[in-house]
């Protein structure tokens, strides 16, 4: 009787083990089948940062000509549109572009370029989004003058504190840069005081007079690291 019960229990255990092996074998087969299945993901290329940076880059290239206007900007955007069809630039639709060069306020010169683009967000809100590039040069003469000899010539140097910034705002990033400055004639003296602050010795003899808000001031141009002219203004 006891032997009969033991035999039945043994058979049940074996059946359970066989069932377990069956489950494991089935799971292994399913996972093996799954691993051979090749994924065909739909790739969505990330857009935003690069496209906004591209517009900043074009605006700076336009400003570097020294006389950026709407026509020049349109020409650059036209080139971009052409290349957009051949290369993976994936530029947004640019609905508007404007060059803003308002009259200097005092001794501060601000140049701005604004692009209005149709992003994915625009599809939902119907509002165009803005990429704005603002380049500001604020000059503040210290009142100090000194002489400097370069070769045979002696120049009267006017010391001016200059604050020079690039601000880029877009739906994807807000960045402020303090580009480095350089002279084009090797006469001006340049010293970086802080991130965006410079002490500039400007040769009076190489400066030209311009009219700002009805007043005559001197203007001397430096260049930044992107090739953009940096107008330093001061009174005679």
């Amino acid at each position, binding site marked *: 009787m006891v032997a009969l019960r033991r035999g039945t229990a043994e058979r049940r255990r*074996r059946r359970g*083990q066989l069932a*377990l*092996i069956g489950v*494991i*074998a089935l*799971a*292994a087969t399913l*996972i*093996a089948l*799954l*691993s051979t299945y090749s*994924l065909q*993901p739909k*790739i969505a*290329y*990330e*857009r935003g*940062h*690069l496209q*906004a*940076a*591209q517009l*900043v*880059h*074009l605006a*700076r*290239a336009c400003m*570097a*000509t020294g006389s950026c206007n709407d026509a020049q900007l349109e020409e*650059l955007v036209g*080139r*971009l549109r052409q*290349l957009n069809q*051949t*290369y*993976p*630039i*994936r530029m947004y639709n640019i609905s508007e572009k404007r060059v803003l060069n308002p009259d200097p306020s005092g001794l501060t010169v601000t140049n701005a370029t604004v692009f209005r683009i149709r992003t994915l967000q625009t599809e939902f809100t119907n509002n165009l989004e803005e990429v704005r590039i603002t380049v500001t040069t604020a000059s503040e003469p210290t009142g100090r003058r000194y002489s400097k000899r370069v070769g045979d010539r002696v120049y009267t140097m006017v010391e001016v504190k200059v604050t020079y910034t690039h601000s*880029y705002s877009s739906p994807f*990033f807000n*960045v402020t*840069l303090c580009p480095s400055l350089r002279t084009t004639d090797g006469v001006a003296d340049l010293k970086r005081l802080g991130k965006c602050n410079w002490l500039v010795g400007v040769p009076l003899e190489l400066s030209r007079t311009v009219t700002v808000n009805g007043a005559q001031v001197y203007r001397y141009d430096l*260049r930044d*690291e*992107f*090739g953009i002219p940096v107008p330093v203004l001061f009174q005679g």
Partner: protein
Amino acid sequence: MRHLEAAAIGLVFAIASAYMVALTARQGASVSGVGAQRALAWALLNAQSPENVTKLLSIALNGTSYEVHVLNWGETLEPKLPFCYGALVVNPAGGEENKIVVVCAGP
């Protein structure tokens, strides 16, 4: 019987691990693609000439699998890696106008 069970469990574990590794590698491709896009954006914001843009790109993408192409207008792009992002680089001061810098990334 117990050896058979252990072998079956081991087989399941090995196949599952291989599947996970393959899946992770495929996911990695999209991550490096995003990295390439932002790296090129960062390089464009901080440089104007094609040489400096590519220099900054190599700094930003150090340690990842990528390739950079500097093309002239009309030149054909033949990438080896699948995810490519391009930009028009205009350098009016340097005389090297209209270069197209393309960065491609992938697994």
